[in-house]
């Protein structure tokens, strides 16, 4: 069947199951856009900036497990997508980005809006294509979606020159992606490794499971929980692993590391076995590597063989899909109990609790998260930005369902939250979606409020407004003797008026007793809504492990000590 390259692209996207795309047109991608009316099954959401398109596609992916699609034009359109692509690459999120490109004959001439996006994006994509013939479009799309979703997922970019979009050719849909021998993710463990891993598990007296994003990506929730329950092994979740297990499961210890809960970091420190699943021993988790888990043997399961041995040398490394490997491993595992270890961890939990301040001059971010957790029954999709609010959300939101926590982990992309929440809400209309932002991150991508208002995408936008870049300010407080260089905003916009300008209701909260009411109102509102929580500018996130220190050098909230001393005096 004869089609233009643009028609082939649309037809191929539909065959790949795409129902919605986030994008913004420009000259070099216009033939593709002008073809969209012929393909009504492809819904397009017009964003306000290409970075927003990529984060929206990312949020769509993470919330649904389907591959998100972002579209931009050539030149600046494509370079604006780099941040979102890098974010998805580091966090292993499947995404397909389509960029317009100048006509083939103009490539390399510094034509108007020509950027070498293949070159510019090369270090941050899983793979990329520049389609030079219309007849290649179906194969390229098929391969791109296959690559994005299989193995360790990631973003794939398709650069689409303008005259290839209009070129006519025969549409031939390849039934299977035509990879020769080059791309073959390792999925299954070999029995020898499984036996050795099972032996380590059987011998362990103080084991912990470290569950990362891979558990969520591989849909290995049940498998992790079964392993934990069968062997009575506590589970620690990395930032992106939050949501890998319901928060109140008795074996779920929560997040370790730089701003993780104290008992989780302590558990790693004292453990004699780490069972690391779908995580990559990021420095925010490990602290100083040479002092990490000093007494522990390590089993490392990851879909990416290059992660095994990259940061930490495991005793047993198993390259494979978390779900399949854990199913295979379960056949070798005998039930076990560790009552003393669990009792010890329980004591640590009681002795080193999180401090949640309440009833101050300002609203505290922690009480907002706690309230949000209660009033959404732990079942909202929580999309965070980066910084203090992100850490408090990870520490304090009690998830009653799994896979609902979306956050930019590896890249720490401020500005992720607003468009990613938009993508998540498009993917999951059945869910309440909250975007949690600091006032800094919010202002990086707040233009997508217009997209939400225009399309009635019902995201609840919470701003934790402390008039500063809170986490950076915290570092200045602790490491730079209160020298606040370039972190304090002296004139923020009026976010409630801004909400009004964008066409959605805005609520301001300045007192603790207003929190619940505002959240209830926002939850009840059928469309997008903004809540500006004016929060304490000087509140710090604890515990804290300074960068480059070991997990043992954890700093707890100083108020815990004061409270303990006061308690002793009272007796």
């Amino acid at each position, binding site marked *: 069947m004869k089609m233009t390259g643009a028609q082939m692209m649309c037809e191929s996207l539909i065959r790949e199951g795409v129902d919605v795309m986030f994008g913004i047109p420009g000259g070099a991608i216009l033939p593709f856009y002008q073809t969209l009316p012929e393909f009504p099954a492809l819904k397009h959401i017009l964003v306000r900036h290409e970075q927003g398109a990529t984060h929206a596609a990312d949020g769509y992916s993470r919330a649904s497990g389907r591959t998100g699609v972002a579209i931009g034009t050539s030149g600046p359109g494509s370079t604006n997508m780099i941040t979102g692509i890098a974010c998805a690459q580091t966090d292993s999120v499947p995404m397909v980005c389509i960029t317009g490109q100048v006509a083939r004959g103009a490539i390399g001439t510094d034509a108007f809006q020509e950027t070498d996006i*293949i*070159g510019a994006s*090369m*270090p941050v994509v*899983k*793979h990329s294509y*520049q389609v030079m013939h219309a007849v290649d479009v179906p194969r390229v799309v098929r391969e791109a979606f296959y*690559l994005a979703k299989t193995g*360790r997922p990631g973003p794939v970019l398709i650069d689409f020159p303008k005259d290839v979009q209009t070129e006519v050719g025969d549409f031939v849909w390849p039934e299977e992606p035509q*990879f*020769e*021998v*080059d*791309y*073959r993710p*390792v999925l299954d463990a*070999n029995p020898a*490794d499984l036996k050795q891993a099972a032996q380590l598990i059987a011998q362990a007296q103080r084991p912990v499971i470290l569950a990362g994003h891979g558990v969520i990506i591989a849909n290995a929730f049940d498998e992790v929980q079964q392993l934990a329950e069968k062997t009575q092994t506590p589970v620690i979740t990395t930032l992106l692993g939050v949501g890998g297990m319901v928060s109140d499961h008795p074996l779920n210890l929560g997040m370790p590391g730089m701003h993780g809960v104290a008992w989780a970091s302590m558990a790693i420190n004292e453990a004699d076995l780490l069972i690391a699943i779908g995580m990559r021993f990021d420095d925010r988790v490990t602290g100083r590597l040479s002092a990490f888990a000093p007494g522990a043997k390590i089993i*490392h399961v990851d879909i*990416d*063989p*290059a992660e*095994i*041995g*990259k940061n930490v*040398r*495991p*005793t*047993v*490394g*198993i*390259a494979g899909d978390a779900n399949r490997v854990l199913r295979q491993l379960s056949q070798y595992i005998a039930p076990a109990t560790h009552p003393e270890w669990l009792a010890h961890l329980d004591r640590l939990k009681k002795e080193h609790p999180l401090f949640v301040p309440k009833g101050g001059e300002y609203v505290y971010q922690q009480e907002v998260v706690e309230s949000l957790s209660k009033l959404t029954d732990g079942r909202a999709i929580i999309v965070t930005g980066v910084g203090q609010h992100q850490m408090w959300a990870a520490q304090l939101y009690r998830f009653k369902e799994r896979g609902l926590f979306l956050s930019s982990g590896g890249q720490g992309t401020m500005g992720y939250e607003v468009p990613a929440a938009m993508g998540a809400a498009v993917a999951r209309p059945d869910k309440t979606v909250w975007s949690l932002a600091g006032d800094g991150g919010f202002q990086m991508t707040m233009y997508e409020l217009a997209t939400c208002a225009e399309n009635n995408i019902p995201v609840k936008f919470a701003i934790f407004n402390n008039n500063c870049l809170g986490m950076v300010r915290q570092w200045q407080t602790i490491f730079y003797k209160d020298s606040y260089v370039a972190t304090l905003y002296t004139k923020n916009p009026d976010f409630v008026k801004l909400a009004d300008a964008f066409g959605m209701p805005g609520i301001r909260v300045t007192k603790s007793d207003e929190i619940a009411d505002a959240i209830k109102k926002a939850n009840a509102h059928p469309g997008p809504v903004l809540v500006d929580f004016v929060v304490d500018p000087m509140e710090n996130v604890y515990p804290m492990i300074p960068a480059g220190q070991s997990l043992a050098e954890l700093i707890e909230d100083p108020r815990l000590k004061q409270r303990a001393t006061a308690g002793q005096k009272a007796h």
Partner: protein
Amino acid sequence: MATGSTHTIVAIVHDRPGVLNRIATVIRRRGFNIASLSVGHSERPGLSRITFVVDGDELVADQVTKQLRKLVDVVRIADITGERLVGRELALVKVRAAPQNRAEIIQFVDIFRANIVDASVESLIIEVTGDEDKVTSLISLLQPFGISEVMRSGRLAMVRGMIAGGDSTNVARVMANGSGPTPLVEVDRSGG
């Protein structure tokens, strides 16, 4: 990471635009130190063969191999350092050759089983093939005469053929025949 040890890594890659760029990007981004890299056609059309010599220990070589294997255009890659292999380098050396020195230069060329591939009034171009030590030795012996240009190919490496009763793996065969991952290519899934 300067341990002084080197590893020889051989890759079969698709001969497509941008492949070398992708490989170079991974090497630069991960901070690997490549002592030499040589690329050429393989025995199969559409596939090129690359020999890398990597400075660093086992762990570095392991990461180079694994990170490059993630590239979709890399069909096969293996660290063949531990194998019985043939490693050769080609060098062209242009050396000043005054009449009174010519005989001595020609003697060195003979000893090293090198060839004179160009002669002019002023200079000779010498072609030498061998392992890196041999090439380096000849170059240092020619140094006193005055070397004006040197071009070294970097190492080309190939695993030796099967010996009777032996279990040596013919990497060239298994790497190129597309018969799926082989033990050698899948070495060290444990990362240890």
